[in-house]
């Protein structure tokens, strides 16, 4: 019988963070994570706990792929909220942060599903073997998948920065664009 308490304390936070990054909705992420742990509780034993949890959570996400429209609505809501936040708290970092988050979300969404999941799992510290197990890939192909995902992500993000966010282009103007480029060229 698995130790649910230990499993939860060890993996809940990274799993929720992975799901939240994947979904853009922390509440929804926690809900999926809860369902994942519930399924874990039904298992007699789990060989590779972390890859098992991430695989189940990823499958749950795929089952709910039809809810992409909801995610888009949520992003729209975030945009509106970011604007409202800007009005309340006109701190420079707040606007930039919200804009970066929106760019990041759009860039991540531009990736293929496999690339996105592999990248987010790697960012949560899963090793290549675990990623391969969770995504049903060969271990040898994980490096290539990650290389492609990272390259496309950065390219998409930089393209968004060059173009500027449609809703904020008029408000932020060229300053945001040039400032953004200058800031991130350092990386």
């Amino acid at each position, binding site marked *: 019988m698995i130790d649910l308490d230990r499993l939860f304390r060890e993996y809940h936070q990274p799993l929720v963070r992975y799901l939240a990054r994947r979904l853009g909705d922390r509440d929804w992420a926690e809900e999926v994570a809860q369902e994942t742990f519930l399924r874990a509780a039904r298992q007699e034993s789990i060989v590779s706990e972390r890859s098992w949890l991430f695989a189940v959570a990823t499958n749950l996400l795929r089952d709910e792929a039809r809810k992409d429209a909801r995610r888009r609505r949520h992003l729209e809501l975030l945009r509106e909220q970011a604007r409202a936040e800007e009005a309340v708290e006109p701190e420079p970092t707040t606007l930039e942060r919200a804009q970066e988050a929106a760019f990041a979300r759009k860039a991540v969404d531009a990736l293929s599903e496999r690339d996105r999941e592999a990248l987010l799992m790697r960012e949560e510290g899963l090793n290549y073997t675990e990623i391969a197990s969770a995504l049903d890939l060969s271990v040898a192909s994980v490096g290539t998948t990650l290389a492609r995902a990272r390259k496309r992500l950065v390219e998409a993000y930089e393209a968004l920065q060059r173009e500027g966010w449609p809703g904020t282009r008029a408000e932020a103007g060229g300053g945001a664009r040039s400032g953004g480029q200058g800031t991130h060229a*350092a990386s």
Partner: protein
Amino acid sequence: MLHLDEGTIHAWLDGELPPDEAEEAARHVASCAACGALVAEARGLMAGATRIVSALDAGPAGVVARGDVRATTRPRGYRFAITPARMSIAATIVVAVGITLSVRHASRDAAVPTAAKTTVDSPAAAAAPRIAAQRVAAADSISSPPASPAPQALKAKRATVSKLASAENNAPVSGKPAGAQAPAAGILPIVEQKALSVSRQTAADAAKQVASAAPVAEAAPAPRRLDSTRAKDEMAKVAVDSISRAPAPPARRAVSVSAVNQLAEVVTTSDRDAGSIGGVTFPSCYRVVVDSTDWRGRIPASFALERLATIAGAAGQGSAAGAAGPRPSAAPVQANRVIAFAPSGNPVHAILPNGRVDSLVVGQWAANSGLINVQFRADPRRPVTLQLMNASSTAHVISNDRTDSVRIVRMTCPR
């Protein structure tokens, strides 16, 4: 040797190549300029990807954490949230089932003890025993385990997951004390309260008239009906999904915040000599909002950048040998100040969890054309440089051959 492909380079940089292949790759990169360029590009891509992915945490956290916004967004995330409307429907179903069962078996009411029946005179009062019996059935359905052991085990596990989640949120799922009921009962308290409260409201008038009769009926074991099992099943259907997701708004907000600030618990400096540095004005203080776990313990969660001039007094004590620039002695010197190392630049202090500035110097910083380089010495063997960029909330962390991105927020310096 053939050139390295991108997948191999990323695997090598991720430390995922077998030792022999890693050694071979390192040897090749050292001798091949083209592959060296690819490795440099891959490092940049990895750092950039990490920074972009980290930015995903920033947006929703900053927005969702606001109370007024939560009120708008939260129901979207809770398909099974307990809303007043849903609770009303659930309570209505429970009451309707109870009343239906009572009516269907009205003929069996003869089995009710005569003491309860003989004291009833009015039609309204006649309903009281039925309702009381219904309450007994409802209570029975709550306190006794379900007929099927498998659903019970599932409910118990679901309740366990909920309890773990709520424990992490620092708030209980329900107000019931742990261990007060059997495992299956833990998922029913809200329905129990609702159902019984509705029953009490419905029967209020009748109960007034038969104040003496109702307790007798409640206490008597005879009204326990065979239908209580069915009522149990109905109530369990209502309860399972909703109760396990019972929200606790303030606690969830706290978790959101703590989940973002992973370094909140990490303080690299000692708690000794934790008094704030009086009279010193810091040019700026920062908080690390999001960080890869790899940096945990190597950079403080919050830190203050102090101007060199203010440490000059301490340097005058001989603690900051080699410090460059003028050393005015105007700044007050605290006798108990402990210099962790001799800074050659402006000193850096950690901000303790209690919001005060630690007097220990944990690093040094220097500004250079829009960049501020902060060097931390929490681990002398692996010094960390945090590169802050002007007007950017993203900072780069550089340590040996690793570069990463963290999100930092400028904060009000403690006074």
